[in-house]
């Protein structure tokens, strides 16, 4: 029997990986994928806890997260495409018209 902590350690590792990806990557798509990774780490934790507690709440939560993530993808990719169309680049470091 695997303890629930094991799942949580895994999900935490994925979550931190995702966070580092957001911080370190310059390509908007990859940044975005890192965010998705973080969301899925959370999903994993949710499912693990749901398994631990034996209730339905966690599972339901996961479904909603997937749905929301899909919505975010739609919006996010549209934005990235728009940016790419106007600048021919999706390097987020080039986005600093405004500062201070």
């Amino acid at each position, binding site marked *: 029997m695997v303890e629930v902590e094991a799942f949580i350690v895994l999900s935490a590792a994925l979550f931190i990986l995702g966070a580092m990806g957001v*911080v370190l990557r310059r390509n908007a798509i990859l940044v975005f994928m890192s965010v998705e990774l973080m969301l899925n780490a959370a999903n994993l934790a949710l499912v693990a806890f749901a398994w631990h507690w034996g209730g339905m709440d966690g599972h339901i939560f996961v479904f909603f997260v997937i749905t929301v993530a899909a919505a975010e993808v739609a919006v996010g990719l549209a934005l990235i495409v728009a940016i790419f169309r106007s600048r021919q680049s999706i390097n*987020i*470091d080039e*986005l600093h018209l405004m500062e201070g």
Partner: protein
Amino acid sequence: MENLAQIAPLIILFPAIGAFINFFWGAKMGEGASAMVGTVASGSSFLVALGLLAYLTGNGFNPAVINPPLLDSWIRIDSVGLDISWQTRVDTLSVSMTLFVTFVGTLIHIYAAGYMHGDPRFSRFFAYLNMFLAFMLILVMGNNLLMMFVGWEGVGLCSYLLISFWWDKPGGEGIANSNAGRKAFIANRVGDFGVLIAIFLSFWAFGTLDYYKPNEIPNPQVSAAHLEEETDSSRVFYSFADEDVEMSQLGMFGQVARYVRIDEAASVSLDNARTILNQARGTGDEQLIAQAEALLETTRAEADANRPQFNIGPATFGIGTLLTLITLFMLLGVTGKSAQIPLFVWLPDAMAGPTPVSALIHAATMVTAGVYMMVRSNIMFHHAELTSIIVALIGATTALVAGFIAIGQFDIKRVLAYSTISQLGFMVAAVGLGAYVAAMFHMITHAFFKALLFLGSGSVIHGMEHGHHHVHLHDADHPEAVTHDSHDDDGFDPQDMRYMGGLREKMPVTYWTYLFGTIALAGIWPFAGFWSKDEILLDAWYVGFEKGLFQGFIVLGLLFAAAAFTAFYMWRQIEMVFHGKPRHEAAEHASESSRSMTIPLVILAFFALFVGFINIPSGIGFPFTFGLEGVLGVHLLGDFLEYSIFAEAFNLLTFNALIAIPALAVGIGGILAARSVYGGGKAIDASGQDPLQADPNTALVWNVAYARMYWDEIYFALIINPYIRIADFLYEVVDWGFLHDYFHDSVLIRGYRSMGDLLARPFDLGIIDGAVNGLGWLAGRIGGGLRLTQTGYVRTYAVALLLGVVAVIILMLLPLI
């Protein structure tokens, strides 16, 4: 019906809203909408007044006191029992005032819509008119002296604003207008001071400024019958006459009645004791005399103890002295607001305002405020005999003096202004004679026919201006006509009767309505003025012949003379303005005014004829009253007002042909005399003089009238110039010489400067400046430093966020360790 009185505050609210709208949006709305707002506001007030009348007739004429919602207490200091409310009083006196104020007011609004057409401040004018109406209604409807004073000051303000409404006219005229406004304001301030003192004294003596408490009635005799009919048990009426009513349950007037009663009771018991002593002396029995003397002593002690005493500061007054003082101070206010000698000089100048203002404020309503105040405080004046004598004499003298001056005036509005002063004198005299109903009656009839005359004169002026304009244009088209035209174009005055004449054909409606007003004012049967003037004369006769008081004779004589002058100067005006031939191109080309102006004239003319029938005296009947006494009843107004006037102060007289016929004769005589002097086209002779001026026999007297009896000059010599000299002295010597040059320069400036030098040292050294600027600089530096973190790079932000997460987690976990 019981709750109908609750609408009373609306009567003030409507014109207030109208004024508000016109003030803020009037200029944008345009003339039509602006006039509509003003007129509707005023008309709504009239409807409310009708509703209040319905309430009174439906509730046995018992008064109601209404606290407007949200505004129950105005000034309240519990420790001294001061509680002054925004209470509105619905009783027969206030309602009879509001009825004619709002009705005449509405007509004048309609008239003004035509008269003011094209004025750049059209909407402002209506805002002022509405504001005036609101204040006038506060004055009338208030249930305490302070509310009355608010209205009193408010109408004074509006009067000032409206007199100097055309302050920006070119030439000296604008300055003259604003000076007229200032004159009115200052003269009124002198009177207002009197009113204020009267208010202070009243409060000091009675501890309240309420006229009557909500369920108190002034005249229990007439109300008794209705009180029994009163089905609504929730309202229990009482009066000062009820023995078990505490003094604190009475308003100031009820207290006066109660105090007078106590005072009189003390006098009566003292008189009885004296009678007993005299009888005892008659018997010669030593023992009886001693007993009676002892009785007199004890009675005197008792009476002295019982007599009410009022401590005003260091002085102690009995009730009679107190009332005399209060009423004398009130009288000062009356001479200001109601334009009596000696403060009447402002009213003729007030004609600088637009004519509707002259009609509404300076003839029909505001100037009657003083009379209203006296009628309202009738119990005080009734018991202040000295004041009453003074009031009667001032009124009658004013009536005669103003009537005399009116004969020597050429300005159409100025004649009417003096006429107004004269008629106000009639009213004031009536109050002095104790004829409160007669005063109110004359006030109401006068409001109608004097408003009519003013509006008629406005129409004439309008017509003359129109004619002048026509000539002017004509001149411009044909330059050669200018040489032919001999008169000085700039000297033309559309109000000067010397330029008029023959307007009868040009302005028929104005002529006929003006004629009605003239006959009414002259007191010719059956017009309104006949009935009301007759009643005052009747009262004077009664006071003189029946009561045997000297002031009655004097007043009767003065008023008869004034009545003769009235008829004379009014017919002089008719002859000069309407009869004969035009004496100027402007008069030749004058034309009738617009409908909006003539319709109010016709309505007012109707009332000038019929409004007198609201108070037909008893003892006269068909055919003299056309049988209207059967419809309206005898003494309708008197019976109505009886519910608001103290029983002791109330009397109604029967018709006396010995007064009425001479009065009528005097009126007709005045007209005939004027006709013989001015009729037949000789109103103004060839040299531009008045026939009376041209005639050496009368020239001297006439010139005195023409010079307005030198009132202004006398004031200048006696008061204003000394005042200015004193002010100059204070200014030149005390203020500049001492205060400025020495005290100010040497003491203050030097002192401040050395002090300032001392204090400024840290500034000079840069300590404080440095600190203040340094703080600003520091804040800027901090901000500038912090803003550097805002790099604009998303990844920086993400890192910051991540660092924040770590920080938050550490901070959150710290307490657990």
